[in-house]
């Protein structure tokens, strides 16, 4: 009778997992880093790690469908002569014409307008269609200054000075040549077909003291009418928020690392910046320390997907949120309807992120005239409006359960955390305890 040593199954390294090995081989074969769109795909502490407590003996709820729960928000009340009033605190984040098709931008404008909220231009300027279909349009003032001009500044409803974004704090943009159509090239004053690099720093200011003067200039050009937002990526939220307030911002937009981008290096998206959840409390603390909470409004973005996320962001102290990726999904991005075509591109619905290549089967992140036709801007706008209304209703449902007659009355006290990490970041107690890491007590 022979003896066989027992076999153990092959064991793969946790460090060198299949994805890592494939990426090493891809880099070796192509000699270029991976560029893609969207935000981080790694799992990070997020709103899913928080729960609302709801009402109890000491907190009574409001009657659903009967007692009012207000969702309106005013943005830009600090200095602007014409602050913005929105019906819902869920806004549409900046996404450029160029990165997105004209139909996609129109759909975002239509959907936002039906839902009573704002949409935002991007790195490429303002199109007439976008202005025409957006009742409230925020005009981004970016380092590249592509498409920047005083007429559009004056026909905007607000101005957003972009310092950074969550997907790439400290990084500029890149619109690869294949997406540079005649119209995109013309709007950006560049030859067709070349890669368009967007600078990471503004060309005419550095630091908070300069920013204060830049904001003064923008206010003077627009006769102090427009709210001025300052958008930062989730890097140093306490100090960035404080410095934006010091520089004179009406609104601070804070974008965590789940926030999307049209295109940048995967290594950047996955390794630079902080999760949205980790950004909110330091930013709110900065506003409170300066006596400016609710006077300078805080908009949070990066991974907002549902009314629960909205309610949690507001409970942590935000005044409003912005959505980008979720809005694209609502209008048809990564829809399984196009699965066959995603497969041909070597991917699958839900994972498609080569937005920079301009081959989007859904006709959203493309300038290809044939692909663009696939997106009906009226229908897509309606879908976005539906989604925004559902999110708003969801947030109201939670707020009523917590006994709040305005979404802004939600508080950190209404929340608990499911994990120690989320508890530390959100500074709410671990569920079932009164313990917040770093705060003492048990």
């Amino acid at each position, binding site marked *: 009778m022979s003896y066989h040593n027992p076999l153990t199954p092959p064991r793969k390294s946790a460090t060198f997992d299949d994805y890592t090995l494939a990426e090493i081989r891809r880099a070796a074969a192509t000699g270029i880093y991976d560029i893609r769109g969207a935000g981080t795909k790694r799992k990070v502490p997020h709103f899913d790690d928080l729960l609302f407590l709801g009402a109890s003996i000491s907190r009574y709820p409001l009657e659903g469908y009967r007692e009012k729960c207000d969702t309106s928000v005013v943005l830009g009340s600090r200095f602007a002569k014409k602050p913005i009033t929105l019906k819902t605190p869920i806004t549409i984040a900046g996404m450029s014409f160029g990165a997105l098709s004209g139909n996609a931008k129109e759909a975002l404008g239509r959907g936002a307008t039906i839902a009573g909220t704002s949409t935002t231009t991007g790195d490429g300027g303002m199109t007439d269609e976008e202005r025409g279909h957006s009742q409230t349009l925020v005009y981004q003032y970016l380092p590249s200054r592509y498409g*920047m001009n005083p007429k559009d500044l004056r026909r905007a409803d607000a101005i957003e000075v972009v310092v950074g974004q969550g997907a790439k704090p400290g990084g500029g943009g890149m619109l690869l040549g294949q997406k540079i159509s005649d119209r995109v090239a013309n709007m950006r004053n560049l030859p067709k077909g070349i890669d368009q690099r967007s600078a990471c720093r503004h*060309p005419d200011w550095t630091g908070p003291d300069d920013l204060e003067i830049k904001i003064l200039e923008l206010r003077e050009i627009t006769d102090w009418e427009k709210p001025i937002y300052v958008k930062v990526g989730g890097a140093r939220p306490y100090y960035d928020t404080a410095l934006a307030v010091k520089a004179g911002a009406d609104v601070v937009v804070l974008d965590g690392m789940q926030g999307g981008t049209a295109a940048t290096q995967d290594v950047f998206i996955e390794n630079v910046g902080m999760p949205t959840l980790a950004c909110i409390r330091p930013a709110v603390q900065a506003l409170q320390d300066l006596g400016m909470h609710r006077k300078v409004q805080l908009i949070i973005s990066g991974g907002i997907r549902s009314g629960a996320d909205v309610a949690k962001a507001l409970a942590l102290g935000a005044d409003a949120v912005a959505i980008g990726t979720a809005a694209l999904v609502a209008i048809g991005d990564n829809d399984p309807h196009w699965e066959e075509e995603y497969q041909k591109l070597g991917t699958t619905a839900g994972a498609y992120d080569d937005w920079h290549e301009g081959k989007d089967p859904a006709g959203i992140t493309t300038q290809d005239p044939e692909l663009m036709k696939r997106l009906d801007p009226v229908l897509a706008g309606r879908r976005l409006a539906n989604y925004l209304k559902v999110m708003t209703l969801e947030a109201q449902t939670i707020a009523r359960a917590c006994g709040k007659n305005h979404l802004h009355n939600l508080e950190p006290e209404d929340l608990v955390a499911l994990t120690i990490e989320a508890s530390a970041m959100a500074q709410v107690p671990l569920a079932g305890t009164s313990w917040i890491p770093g705060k003492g007590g048990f």
Partner: protein
Amino acid sequence: MPVFDLSTTPLRELNSALHSLSKGANDTAFEIVNPRGSHAVAVGIDSPVSVEVRGSVGYYCAGMNDGGTVTVKGSAGPGVAENMMSGTVVIEGDASQYAGATGRGGLLVIKGNAASRCGISMKGIDIVVYGNIGHMSAFMGQSGHLVVLGDAGDALGDSLYEAKLFVRGTVKSLGADCIEKELRPEHLEKLAELLEKAGVAGVKPEEFKRYGSARKLYNFNIDNADAY
């Protein structure tokens, strides 16, 4: 002629007056005294007014000018005539950094020197500098012309797109993808036109060298990574 004394009149009143001129207004010549380094002087002009500033200004003088003629009888702080659309801005003294940044049109004349990043990200503006310019000038310049009668600092035209650069003196160093190019008849003609518009006398177009983009960095190539 409306006169604004910025030692007694708020900046807001000045810029508001410049923006509220009705079409066909007769009183279109403005004088500003005691600017005392104020920021955002005469910004957002959107009609063919004439503004004379008697003294030196701070940041962003004549920012986003669209059609006005602004003359500064002194020096200008950072970002003078930034993002100009059209019109003319003349600085009798020196200009600080970022002069003419992202300008899309019009003519900026600096009769003294300009500091670093003159013409950064220029998108169609014409800039004529009587003296020298600092480092990183015309960085990522997309279109327009930068004419320098004196010398240029380090890294001229780094990551240049299609802006055309003309320097009469020395260039300390060229930036990535910027090379010296042939001065052809059409360039001599354009130079002569710009020199005349800028009021430069006694200088011949043939005295300049032309610099432009080698266009090697227009599309990303891993083998050019050392250039970035």
